[in-house]
């Protein structure tokens, strides 16, 4: 445990009223903002559920088993993110690099699944302009994918720093904030997967959506 040495460094950190670091607080508040962003996109999807005038409808093309796999992969990346932070706190240099890269890699697999899924849907006739399902589905999952992609870029940036030996207990907060963002994006996906695949994935035709 290299904690003893590092506490001296932490003591230099600026005084804050709550004792919580500025950047960490910033990330928490930003995630609140992002909740409203995804909330509005999800609301759009739910309002337009079952309102498409023509196909393809979700039952025609949504492939729940395949997306279950990519969901599992994304959830695993949360585990590796936790491991990356643990390794950072323990100053396990090898572990930091392995787990950061593993998290980015799992995220990339998820994005790969999404690219294939989008292409398949396009070939089967579901485009942005095809119907309301296409518009709200691609917008919501697309913006989620953009969030994951941003997270991957951030993870790779952190990995580069780790290779240079600049990630350790002194910078554990940077990894923790990255982790907050990454876990949030994962949690949003759980909501999306539940609503768009497990519940909405079997919608057929323009029947009125239950429960309004």
């Amino acid at each position, binding site marked *: 445990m290299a904690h003893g040495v590092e506490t001296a460094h932490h003591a230099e950190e600026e005084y*804050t*009223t*709550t004792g*919580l670091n*500025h950047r960490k*607080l*910033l990330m928490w*508040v*930003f995630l*609140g*903002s*992002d909740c*409203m*962003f995804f*909330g*509005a*996109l999800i609301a*759009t999807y739910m*309002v*337009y559920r079952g*309102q*498409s*005038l023509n196909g393809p409808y979700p039952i025609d093309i949504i492939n729940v088993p395949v997306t279950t796999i990519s969901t599992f992969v994304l959830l695993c990346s949360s585990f590796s993110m936790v491991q990356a932070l643990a390794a950072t706190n323990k100053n396990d240099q090898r572990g930091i690099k392995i787990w950061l890269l593993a998290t980015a890699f799992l995220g990339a697999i998820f994005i790969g699944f999404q690219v294939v899924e989008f292409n398949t849907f396009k070939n089967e006739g579901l*485009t*942005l*302009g095809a*119907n*309301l399902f*296409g*518009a*709200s589905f691609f*917008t919501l999952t697309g913006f989620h994918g953009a969030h994951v992609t941003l997270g991957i870029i951030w993870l790779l*940036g952190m990995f580069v720093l780790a290779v240079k030996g600049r990630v350790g207990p002194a910078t554990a907060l940077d990894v923790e904030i990255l982790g907050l963002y990454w876990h949030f994006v994962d949690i949003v996906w759980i909501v999306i997967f539940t609503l768009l695949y497990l519940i909405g994935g079997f919608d057929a035709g323009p029947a009125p959506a239950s429960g309004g």
Partner: protein
Amino acid sequence: MATLTGVLARPSGYTGVWSWITTVDHKRIGILYGFTAFAMLLIAGVEAGVMRAQLATADSDLVSPGVFNQMFTMHATAMVFNVIMPLSASFFNLIVPLAIGARDVAFPRLNALSYWLFLFGTLLLHAGFLQNQAPDAGWFSYASLTEKPYSANAGMDFWALGLLVLGTSSVAAALNFTVTIINMRAPGMSLMRMPVFIWMTLITSILLILAFPVITVGLIELTMDRNFGTHFFMPAGGGDPLLWQHLFWVFGHPEVYILILPPMGVVSEVLPTFSRKPLFGYPFVVFSGITIGIMSWAVWSHHMFTVGLGPVANSVFTITTMLIAVPTGVKIFNWIGTMWGGAIEFKTSMLFAVGFVFLFIIGGLSGVSHAVAPADNQQQDTYYIVAHIHYVLFGGSIFGIFAGIYYWGPKFTGRLLGEGLGKLNFWLIFIGMNLTFFPMHFVGMNGMPRRVYTYPAESGFQLLNSLSSLGYIVLFIGFVVFIVNYLRSSKNGAEAGHDPWDAPGIEWSISSPPPAYNFAVIPEVLGRDHYWIVKEQAREAGQGTPPGEAHVDERTIHMPSPSYWPIVIAFGVTWIAGGLLTHYALSFAGGIIAFAGVVGWGNEPAAAESDH
């Protein structure tokens, strides 16, 4: 910091144009916000003048209906997003760190980024004028008027993309001030010792953080409808125009309180100072502000009483809208209670604050009158609504902002604004404002529709409309008097000294203008009206009035260094949006510029070592 920071040498120094472009000092950023927003106020004011000239006489054809549409759209959009919000942001920047006893905001470079995004977003929003394609669908931009078939030129794209950039700016600023207020208060300043202006800033920031993502989604969906073939708001493709209205007003109603809460905070500082009494019922003012913030999320459909949501929805939103008048009324009684029995001193700032209370009561009462759904059916889309909105946003927000300019302005210029011209300024604007907007209650109730470029002579609206247009001229002179007053006093005004009003806030304990580091020694806050307590203690000890804090050598205090990256990122982000209008290649280039900016920013320490 090896790679990108090496390309551009770290800026340093505190003079010249470059020092303003690279500044991260909250006071300078506040001044930039203030001047930019005031310039926009003049532009949007001239747009209002075009409308009043057109409406001065019946059956006028001074401007075409198309130009009139552009005028009311850009007047309202600019007044909301480019004038009142950034003027409030200017006060946040200038006052918040000083009033909580901090040396800067939590994220100085993010603060600079907010300003540059605001400036470039404003330019993008107005760029349509250059191609005669200004937005023309109203500031609420109801679908499906805004869709490609009905709004064929690029005006609505400028509008949507400009507002997306402005929204990014607002959220970034709001995140910054939330963290600053929660985390950077001087020792001893508990939440319930914060000045009310700081409380209102915090509530406003939280509303911004939560409300802007909703309009962001609406704007993205609108942009996709217009450019990428979706049918979110197009009935032809199954879309529902009402979804736009819901998204817009779920944002739009908290936005109304984003516009009014900061001026309410200003007034809550000005009234006690010039009544020589602590604010009456401080906890009630704070908690009614919080209540307004929460309830502002439950009233949006009162903007939609006439779209046919059904009796249940209309009843619910009638009740919630009437309820939100209660905390607002609580505040008004507290302001009156503050003045009651006080040794009132009618400086110009105080006049504007009292004017705020007076006019806001009128605006609030007309507001409650259209909280009632059946009455609103009569008032919807008439000049009665125009009268209401101007009593709360002009009589409210702008008067509160003027009270703040006369109150806090001397802290930053070091010179008092002239009281003689100031009082002339107040009375001209007060009379002009009432002359312009009071008649609108009557023409509105008699059925004159808003957003229509003319009216027939036989309608009988001519006289009252001429009065409104006359009022505009009075207002115009009032603003000219303000500019003259500002220019004269900035050269020849009386020295303000550090505490011209014998005020209670911590910001008055340091020199005017404050040094770059604000406080040489971070103060230990003694109570709610800290500086009054300090001065009282000094008097009791027989020491007389304490002088302003003495300056120390700037180099002994570690301050964040200037940076190029905020303006670089803001430039790149604006081109990402602007490229969508022209060539996607430009968007791509903008993305690369922004990314390079982010990398440069990340590799640059917040404060250069040599600045120690």
